[in-house]
Protein backbone atom coordinates (compact mmCIF):
# COMPACT_ATOMS: atom_id res chain seq x y z
CA UNK A 1 0.00 0.00 0.00
CA UNK A 2 1.45 3.31 -1.05
CA UNK A 3 1.26 6.76 0.42
CA UNK A 4 -0.52 9.85 -0.86
CA UNK A 5 1.19 13.23 -0.54
CA UNK A 6 -0.48 16.49 -1.46
CA UNK A 7 1.71 19.35 -2.71
CA UNK A 8 0.05 22.60 -1.74
CA UNK A 9 0.80 26.28 -1.06
CA UNK A 10 -2.25 28.50 -0.89
CA UNK A 11 -0.70 31.17 -3.08
CA UNK A 12 -0.43 30.57 -6.79
CA UNK A 13 2.79 30.78 -8.73
CA UNK A 14 5.17 29.57 -6.03
CA UNK A 15 6.08 26.40 -7.92
CA UNK A 16 3.66 23.68 -6.81
CA UNK A 17 3.39 22.11 -10.22
CA UNK A 18 7.12 22.23 -10.92
CA UNK A 19 7.75 20.79 -7.48
CA UNK A 20 5.25 17.97 -8.01
CA UNK A 21 6.76 17.10 -11.39
CA UNK A 22 10.31 17.11 -10.08
CA UNK A 23 9.68 15.19 -6.88
CA UNK A 24 7.62 12.70 -8.85
CA UNK A 25 10.41 12.18 -11.36
CA UNK A 26 13.02 12.02 -8.60
CA UNK A 27 11.06 9.37 -6.71
CA UNK A 28 10.74 7.38 -9.93
CA UNK A 29 14.52 7.68 -10.40
CA UNK A 30 14.84 6.06 -6.98
CA UNK A 31 12.92 3.10 -8.35
CA UNK A 32 9.60 3.95 -6.70
CA UNK A 33 6.30 3.46 -8.48
CA UNK A 34 4.87 6.96 -8.68
CA UNK A 35 1.61 8.46 -9.87
CA UNK A 36 1.23 12.22 -10.07
CA UNK A 37 -2.28 13.63 -10.12
CA UNK A 38 -3.15 17.07 -11.46
CA UNK A 39 -5.98 18.18 -9.17
CA UNK A 40 -6.19 21.65 -10.70
CA UNK A 41 -9.32 20.99 -12.68
CA UNK A 42 -9.94 23.67 -15.29
CA UNK A 43 -6.33 24.87 -15.24
CA UNK A 44 -4.46 21.77 -16.35
CA UNK A 45 -0.70 22.28 -16.20
CA UNK A 46 1.17 19.34 -14.77
CA UNK A 47 1.00 17.64 -18.17
CA UNK A 48 2.84 20.42 -19.99
CA UNK A 49 5.43 20.85 -17.25
CA UNK A 50 6.19 17.14 -17.53
CA UNK A 51 6.17 17.15 -21.32
CA UNK A 52 3.22 14.75 -21.56
CA UNK A 53 0.64 17.19 -22.94
CA UNK A 54 0.30 15.46 -26.31
CA UNK A 55 -0.61 12.10 -24.93
CA UNK A 56 -3.78 12.87 -22.97
CA UNK A 57 -6.84 10.83 -23.86
CA UNK A 58 -8.85 10.69 -20.64
CA UNK A 59 -8.66 12.83 -17.52
CA UNK A 60 -9.46 12.72 -13.83
CA UNK A 61 -13.10 13.70 -14.34
CA UNK A 62 -13.53 10.87 -16.85
CA UNK A 63 -12.19 8.49 -14.22
CA UNK A 64 -14.36 9.59 -11.31
CA UNK A 65 -17.48 9.77 -13.44
CA UNK A 66 -16.89 6.30 -14.79
CA UNK A 67 -16.29 7.25 -18.43
CA UNK A 68 -13.09 5.20 -18.34
CA UNK A 69 -11.04 3.07 -15.98
CA UNK A 70 -8.10 4.56 -14.05
CA UNK A 71 -5.60 2.56 -16.05
CA UNK A 72 -6.88 4.00 -19.30
CA UNK A 73 -6.42 7.56 -18.10
CA UNK A 74 -2.92 7.14 -16.66
CA UNK A 75 -0.17 8.40 -18.96
CA UNK A 76 3.02 6.53 -18.58
CA UNK A 77 6.16 8.64 -18.81
CA UNK A 78 8.31 6.93 -21.43
CA UNK A 79 11.50 8.20 -19.79
CA UNK A 80 10.74 6.19 -16.64
CA UNK A 81 8.28 3.40 -16.70
CA UNK A 82 7.70 3.89 -12.96
CA UNK A 83 6.11 7.30 -13.41
CA UNK A 84 2.62 8.05 -14.58
CA UNK A 85 0.37 11.09 -14.74
CA UNK A 86 -3.35 11.42 -14.19
CA UNK A 87 -4.17 14.71 -15.92
CA UNK A 88 -6.76 17.27 -14.84
CA UNK A 89 -9.77 18.01 -16.98
CA UNK A 90 -9.39 21.28 -18.83
CA UNK A 91 -12.99 22.04 -19.77
CA UNK A 92 -14.76 21.22 -16.52
CA UNK A 93 -14.64 23.11 -13.23
CA UNK A 94 -13.54 22.32 -9.71
CA UNK A 95 -16.94 21.05 -8.68
CA UNK A 96 -16.78 18.22 -11.23
CA UNK A 97 -15.06 16.12 -8.54
CA UNK A 98 -15.92 15.82 -4.85
CA UNK A 99 -13.73 14.84 -1.88
CA UNK A 100 -15.29 11.36 -1.57
CA UNK A 101 -14.52 10.57 -5.20
CA UNK A 102 -10.95 11.78 -4.72
CA UNK A 103 -10.51 9.61 -1.65
CA UNK A 104 -11.72 6.56 -3.50
CA UNK A 105 -9.51 7.30 -6.50
CA UNK A 106 -6.41 7.78 -4.38
CA UNK A 107 -7.08 4.65 -2.33
CA UNK A 108 -7.28 2.79 -5.60
CA UNK A 109 -4.02 4.25 -6.94
CA UNK A 110 -2.19 3.55 -3.67
CA UNK A 111 -2.69 -0.16 -4.27
CA UNK A 112 -0.47 -0.08 -7.34
CA UNK A 113 1.92 2.79 -6.52
CA UNK A 114 4.41 3.54 -3.78
CA UNK A 115 3.68 7.25 -3.94
CA UNK A 116 0.68 9.19 -5.18
CA UNK A 117 1.52 12.90 -5.46
CA UNK A 118 -1.37 15.33 -5.75
CA UNK A 119 -0.71 18.72 -7.30
CA UNK A 120 -3.14 20.98 -5.47
CA UNK A 121 -4.68 24.07 -7.08
CA UNK A 122 -4.02 27.50 -5.57
CA UNK A 123 -6.61 28.81 -3.17
CA UNK A 124 -8.53 27.32 -0.27
CA UNK A 125 -11.85 26.52 -1.91
CA UNK A 126 -13.32 23.34 -3.34
CA UNK A 127 -10.25 22.47 -5.41
CA UNK A 128 -8.08 22.53 -2.29
CA UNK A 129 -10.59 20.44 -0.34
CA UNK A 130 -10.67 17.88 -3.15
CA UNK A 131 -6.90 17.74 -3.42
CA UNK A 132 -6.30 17.10 0.27
CA UNK A 133 -9.18 14.65 0.65
CA UNK A 134 -7.19 11.48 0.19
CA UNK A 135 -3.79 12.68 1.36
CA UNK A 136 -1.81 10.96 4.10
CA UNK A 137 0.86 13.64 4.20
CA UNK A 138 1.34 17.17 2.92
CA UNK A 139 4.18 19.20 1.51
CA UNK A 140 3.73 22.96 1.67
CA UNK A 141 5.63 24.99 -0.91
CA UNK A 142 6.48 28.62 -0.23
CA UNK A 143 8.87 31.25 -1.53
CA UNK A 144 10.72 33.79 0.64
CA UNK A 145 8.07 36.45 0.11
CA UNK A 146 5.61 37.81 2.65
CA UNK A 147 2.56 36.90 0.57
CA UNK A 148 3.61 33.30 0.02
CA UNK A 149 4.62 32.78 3.66
CA UNK A 150 1.36 34.24 4.92
CA UNK A 151 -0.65 31.95 2.65
CA UNK A 152 1.48 28.97 3.67
CA UNK A 153 0.60 29.69 7.30
CA UNK A 154 -3.08 29.68 6.46
CA UNK A 155 -2.73 26.42 4.53
CA UNK A 156 -0.87 24.79 7.42
CA UNK A 157 -3.77 25.74 9.69
CA UNK A 158 -6.30 24.28 7.26
CA UNK A 159 -4.29 21.08 6.84
CA UNK A 160 -4.18 20.62 10.58
CA UNK A 161 -7.92 21.25 10.80
CA UNK A 162 -8.33 18.49 8.20
CA UNK A 163 -6.16 16.24 10.39
CA UNK A 164 -3.24 16.11 8.00
CA UNK A 165 -0.74 16.83 10.71
CA UNK A 166 2.93 17.74 10.54
CA UNK A 167 3.08 19.09 7.00
CA UNK A 168 6.62 19.53 5.69
CA UNK A 169 7.94 22.74 4.19
CA UNK A 170 9.73 23.42 0.92
CA UNK A 171 11.29 26.85 0.50
CA UNK A 172 11.41 27.38 -3.24
CA UNK A 173 13.24 29.99 -5.35
CA UNK A 174 15.64 31.07 -2.64
CA UNK A 175 17.98 33.76 -3.91
CA UNK A 176 21.24 33.21 -2.12
CA UNK A 177 22.69 36.59 -3.14
CA UNK A 178 19.72 38.46 -1.67
CA UNK A 179 19.73 36.38 1.50
CA UNK A 180 23.39 37.30 1.99
CA UNK A 181 22.59 40.97 1.72
CA UNK A 182 19.79 40.58 4.25
CA UNK A 183 17.24 41.61 1.67
CA UNK A 184 15.42 38.29 1.55
CA UNK A 185 14.21 36.14 4.41
CA UNK A 186 16.43 33.13 4.92
CA UNK A 187 15.26 29.59 5.52
CA UNK A 188 15.58 29.92 9.29
CA UNK A 189 13.42 33.06 9.30
CA UNK A 190 10.67 31.22 7.43
CA UNK A 191 10.94 28.14 9.62
CA UNK A 192 10.66 30.35 12.72
CA UNK A 193 7.52 32.01 11.46
CA UNK A 194 5.73 28.92 10.20
CA UNK A 195 6.94 26.50 12.89
CA UNK A 196 6.92 23.41 10.66
CA UNK A 197 9.71 21.06 9.72
CA UNK A 198 11.68 21.71 6.59
CA UNK A 199 11.97 19.02 3.92
CA UNK A 200 13.91 20.97 1.32
CA UNK A 201 15.27 24.23 -0.03
CA UNK A 202 15.35 24.84 -3.76
CA UNK A 203 17.50 27.72 -5.00
CA UNK A 204 16.19 30.07 -7.67
CA UNK A 205 17.66 28.51 -10.77
CA UNK A 206 17.44 29.29 -14.48
CA UNK A 207 17.73 25.60 -15.09
CA UNK A 208 14.18 25.06 -13.79
CA UNK A 209 12.81 27.53 -16.34
CA UNK A 210 14.84 26.01 -19.16
CA UNK A 211 13.99 22.42 -18.36
CA UNK A 212 10.31 23.28 -17.93
CA UNK A 213 10.43 24.97 -21.34
CA UNK A 214 11.56 21.66 -22.74
CA UNK A 215 9.10 19.61 -20.72
CA UNK A 216 11.76 17.69 -18.86
CA UNK A 217 11.99 17.86 -15.07
CA UNK A 218 15.17 19.48 -13.73
CA UNK A 219 16.03 16.32 -11.81
CA UNK A 220 17.31 14.83 -15.06
CA UNK A 221 20.17 17.31 -15.01
CA UNK A 222 22.96 15.94 -12.90
CA UNK A 223 24.74 19.28 -12.80
CA UNK A 224 21.85 21.48 -11.76
CA UNK A 225 21.67 22.61 -8.16
CA UNK A 226 17.87 22.77 -8.20
CA UNK A 227 17.75 19.28 -9.65
CA UNK A 228 19.89 18.05 -6.81
CA UNK A 229 17.67 19.86 -4.28
CA UNK A 230 14.63 18.06 -5.68
CA UNK A 231 16.40 14.70 -5.68
CA UNK A 232 17.29 15.27 -2.03
CA UNK A 233 13.67 16.06 -1.19
CA UNK A 234 12.60 12.80 -2.82
CA UNK A 235 15.13 10.89 -0.73
CA UNK A 236 13.88 12.58 2.43
CA UNK A 237 10.32 11.61 1.50
CA UNK A 238 11.40 7.99 1.39
CA UNK A 239 12.69 8.38 4.94
CA UNK A 240 16.37 8.75 4.18
CA UNK A 241 18.29 11.38 6.12
CA UNK A 242 20.00 13.73 3.73
CA UNK A 243 21.97 16.81 4.79
CA UNK A 244 20.61 20.11 3.51
CA UNK A 245 22.58 21.77 0.74
CA UNK A 246 24.60 24.71 1.94
CA UNK A 247 24.06 27.82 -0.08
CA UNK A 248 25.69 30.25 2.31
CA UNK A 249 29.40 30.08 1.64
CA UNK A 250 30.31 32.50 -1.10
CA UNK A 251 34.02 31.81 -1.53
CA UNK A 252 33.76 28.13 -2.16
CA UNK A 253 30.25 28.10 -3.49
CA UNK A 254 31.08 26.48 -6.81
CA UNK A 255 33.53 24.20 -5.08
CA UNK A 256 30.79 23.07 -2.75
CA UNK A 257 28.47 22.24 -5.60
CA UNK A 258 31.14 20.23 -7.33
CA UNK A 259 32.00 18.48 -4.11
CA UNK A 260 28.38 17.71 -3.31
CA UNK A 261 27.76 16.46 -6.81
CA UNK A 262 30.70 14.12 -6.73
CA UNK A 263 29.50 12.82 -3.37
CA UNK A 264 26.08 12.18 -4.79
CA UNK A 265 27.43 9.80 -7.41
Amino acid at each position, binding site marked *: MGEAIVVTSGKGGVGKTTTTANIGAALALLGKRVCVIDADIGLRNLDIVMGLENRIVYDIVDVVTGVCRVKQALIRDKRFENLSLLPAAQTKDKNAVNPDQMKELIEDLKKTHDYVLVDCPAGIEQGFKNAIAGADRAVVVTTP*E*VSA*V*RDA*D*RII*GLLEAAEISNPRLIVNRLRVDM*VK*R*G*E*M*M*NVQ*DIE*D*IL*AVDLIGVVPDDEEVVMSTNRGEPAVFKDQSLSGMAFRNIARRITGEEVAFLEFDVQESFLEKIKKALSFGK
Partner: protein
Amino acid sequence: MFDLFGFLNSKPQSKNVAKDRLKLVLVHDRSNCSPELLELLKKDILSSISEHVDYDPSDMDIKITRTHDDESGKPVLVASIPIKNLKR
Protein backbone atom coordinates in the same frame (compact mmCIF):
# COMPACT_ATOMS: atom_id res chain seq x y z
CA MET B 1 32.65 46.60 13.57
CA PHE B 2 30.11 44.93 11.38
CA ASP B 3 27.44 45.52 14.02
CA LEU B 4 28.39 49.16 14.22
CA PHE B 5 27.79 49.52 10.51
CA GLY B 6 24.43 47.90 10.90
CA PHE B 7 23.63 50.28 13.72
CA LEU B 8 24.63 53.35 11.76
CA ASN B 9 22.68 52.27 8.75
CA SER B 10 19.31 53.86 9.43
CA LYS B 11 17.34 51.65 7.06
CA PRO B 12 16.80 48.19 8.53
CA GLN B 13 17.40 45.18 6.32
CA SER B 14 14.22 44.48 4.43
CA LYS B 15 14.16 40.85 5.51
CA ASN B 16 13.75 41.94 9.12
CA VAL B 17 10.93 44.26 8.15
CA ALA B 18 9.31 41.36 6.30
CA LYS B 19 9.68 39.09 9.30
CA ASP B 20 8.23 41.61 11.74
CA ARG B 21 5.30 42.44 9.50
CA LEU B 22 4.56 38.78 8.92
CA LYS B 23 4.66 37.95 12.63
CA LEU B 24 2.17 40.67 13.35
CA VAL B 25 -0.24 39.85 10.57
CA LEU B 26 -0.15 36.13 11.35
CA VAL B 27 -1.31 36.78 14.89
CA HIS B 28 -4.45 38.29 13.42
CA ASP B 29 -4.79 35.52 10.83
CA ARG B 30 -4.35 32.77 13.40
CA SER B 31 -6.63 34.31 16.00
CA ASN B 32 -9.47 34.03 13.52
CA CYS B 33 -10.86 37.24 14.94
CA SER B 34 -13.30 38.95 12.64
CA PRO B 35 -13.73 42.73 12.73
CA GLU B 36 -17.28 42.08 13.94
CA LEU B 37 -16.01 40.11 16.93
CA LEU B 38 -13.52 42.84 17.77
CA GLU B 39 -16.28 45.46 17.60
CA LEU B 40 -18.39 43.34 19.91
CA LEU B 41 -15.54 42.96 22.37
CA LYS B 42 -14.92 46.69 22.31
CA LYS B 43 -18.55 47.49 22.97
CA ASP B 44 -18.80 45.08 25.88
CA ILE B 45 -15.55 46.16 27.48
CA LEU B 46 -16.49 49.82 27.27
CA SER B 47 -19.99 49.31 28.56
CA SER B 48 -18.73 47.40 31.56
CA ILE B 49 -16.02 49.89 32.52
CA SER B 50 -18.18 52.94 31.90
CA GLU B 51 -20.03 52.17 35.12
CA HIS B 52 -16.87 52.79 37.08
CA VAL B 53 -14.75 55.24 35.09
CA ASP B 54 -14.98 58.07 32.60
CA TYR B 55 -12.79 57.18 29.69
CA ASP B 56 -11.51 59.18 26.76
CA PRO B 57 -12.93 57.55 23.61
CA SER B 58 -10.78 59.66 21.29
CA ASP B 59 -7.50 58.17 22.44
CA MET B 60 -8.18 54.52 23.15
CA ASP B 61 -6.78 51.47 21.44
CA ILE B 62 -8.27 48.00 21.66
CA LYS B 63 -6.67 45.34 19.51
CA ILE B 64 -5.62 41.74 19.23
CA THR B 65 -1.86 41.42 19.06
CA ARG B 66 0.99 39.48 20.59
CA THR B 67 3.17 40.42 23.54
CA HIS B 68 6.80 41.16 22.86
CA ASP B 69 8.17 38.70 25.36
CA ASP B 70 5.84 35.85 24.51
CA GLU B 71 7.29 33.69 21.75
CA SER B 72 4.39 31.23 21.76
CA GLY B 73 2.63 33.37 19.15
CA LYS B 74 -0.65 33.19 21.05
CA PRO B 75 -2.82 36.23 20.49
CA VAL B 76 -3.35 38.72 23.28
CA LEU B 77 -6.19 41.17 23.68
CA VAL B 78 -4.68 44.54 24.53
CA ALA B 79 -6.84 47.46 25.60
CA SER B 80 -5.41 50.87 26.25
CA ILE B 81 -8.17 53.12 27.50
CA PRO B 82 -7.21 56.50 28.96
CA ILE B 83 -9.21 57.27 32.09
CA LYS B 84 -10.42 60.82 32.68
CA ASN B 85 -12.08 60.28 36.04
CA LEU B 86 -12.62 57.44 38.41
CA LYS B 87 -16.21 57.27 39.58
CA ARG B 88 -16.27 56.65 43.28
